[in-house]
């Protein structure tokens, strides 16, 4: 039990190492989720509305990629960014930027697939009404994204939660360098194997609280939106 007590003490005393790790984790995952949203929302909306040969295959692949194994994404980005890889000259491997790239690839299918589902369902309902009002393609996308805003926020939170909780990609492309690319999850893995349980448990607690907060936020958004917009 002494480990639990020390874990709480680390959190309560505002331990500098612990909080710099939390900060890095959050900024990497937030940046990754933001990039995934910027690419994933238009991509999902496009797939929902456009009809072209091969669309079904892309949708199936996208849905499948929601469960992409993080280590495989990590490995792929590692190969791209490693010195002999095609993007090796950028010198990004083992930097926070590499972690952002890898995590945004991990989160992108989640955002894009959930957006496609939301927008397509909404389009089925809205199609005739919008056509009758003479709404053009750009207006249709804008209307559907806006009217699907609450489901889309939930998708964003799901993506962010996935990024914050995964360990495989950031371990491989970040390298778990002390004070530079060490995140909550990679620290927990390392410190546990070293037997330094208080820091591992302290970070574990912070991580669980964060995930709970994200889910509570998603739940709150849903309740609030049901009251506000029906």
């Amino acid at each position: 039990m002494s480990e639990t007590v020390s874990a709480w003490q680390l959190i309560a005393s505002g331990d500098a190492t612990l909080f710099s790790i939390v900060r890095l984790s959050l900024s990497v995952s937030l940046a990754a989720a933001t990039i995934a949203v910027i690419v994933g929302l238009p991509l999902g909306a496009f797939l929902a509305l456009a009809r072209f040969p091969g669309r079904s295959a892309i949708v199936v692949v996208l849905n499948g990629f929601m469960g992409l194994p993080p280590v495989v994404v990590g490995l792929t980005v590692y190969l791209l960014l490693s010195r002999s890889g095609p993007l090796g000259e950028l010198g990004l491997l083992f930097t926070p930027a590499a972690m952002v790239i890898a995590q945004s690839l991990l989160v992108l299918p989640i955002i894009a697939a959930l957006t496609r589902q939301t927008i397509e369902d909404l389009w089925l309902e809205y199609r005739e009404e919008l056509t009758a009002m003479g709404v053009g393609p750009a207006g249709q996308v804008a209307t559907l994204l806006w009217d699907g805003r609450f489901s889309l926020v939930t998708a964003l939170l799901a993506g962010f939660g996935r990024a914050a909780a995964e360990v495989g990609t950031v371990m491989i492309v970040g390298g778990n360098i002390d004070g530079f690319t060490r995140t909550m999850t990679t620290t927990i893995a390392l410190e546990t194997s070293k037997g330094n349980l208080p820091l591992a448990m302290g970070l574990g607690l912070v991580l669980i609280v964060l995930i709970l907060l994200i889910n509570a936020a998603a739940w709150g958004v849903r309740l609030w939106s049901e009251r506000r917009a029906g």
Partner: protein
Amino acid sequence: MRAAPSDLPLVLDGVSIAVGGTTILDRLNLTIMPGAPTLIVGPNGSGKTSLLRLCMGLAAPSKGTVSWGGRTHLPQTRRAIVFQKPVMLRRSAAANVAYGLAQAGCPRALRARRTEELLDRVGLLALASRPARRLSGGEQQRLALARALAREPEILLLDEPTASLDPAATRFVEEIILAAAQSGTKIVMASHDLGQVRRLAGDVLFLVRGHVCERADAADFLDRPATPEAAAFVQGELVI
């Protein structure tokens, strides 16, 4: 907007709609002129909704042509339709009307005032900020009417707008429709309520299985139906 060319008369010339071998409308010839409301009556599946969608330009005929004021390709800015189950956007009542105004090309500066006028016209001003999907069925129909009227339509197509409403709500909706008709909008409305035909119709189009079975002034149709099918329908017998 009044300078735009007229959509009337609306002419259907030898129009058929067939979907997968099933004929929904069969060689319809029909001219709709300005004037009192035209009510399309007939049993379920007789083609009322398909006819309204044709009139709106939402469906293309399999055969024949539809023309508005002599033109077959016309932007639908001067027509509006209210579906049987109108879709409320996930926004406030006022935002739904403002959306309709924006799509009809109403300048941004005028939208707030026009929204208020339209909501007032359908008796929903007090509920302006209420989420549209939280409104009752009758209120949603009135909101859909306000959104359609935002287009200042020359032709207003209505698909059984009172089908699932109680008498009080029906009366409210009918008053809005009559007011629109009196201000010069041509109403074309599907209904299978004979009381409603008596209250609203100038003339009646009686559809059975995709054919125009009878077209007559409302009073003639109700009191002196010319065909056995119409007579049976007016008598309240089941016409299938």
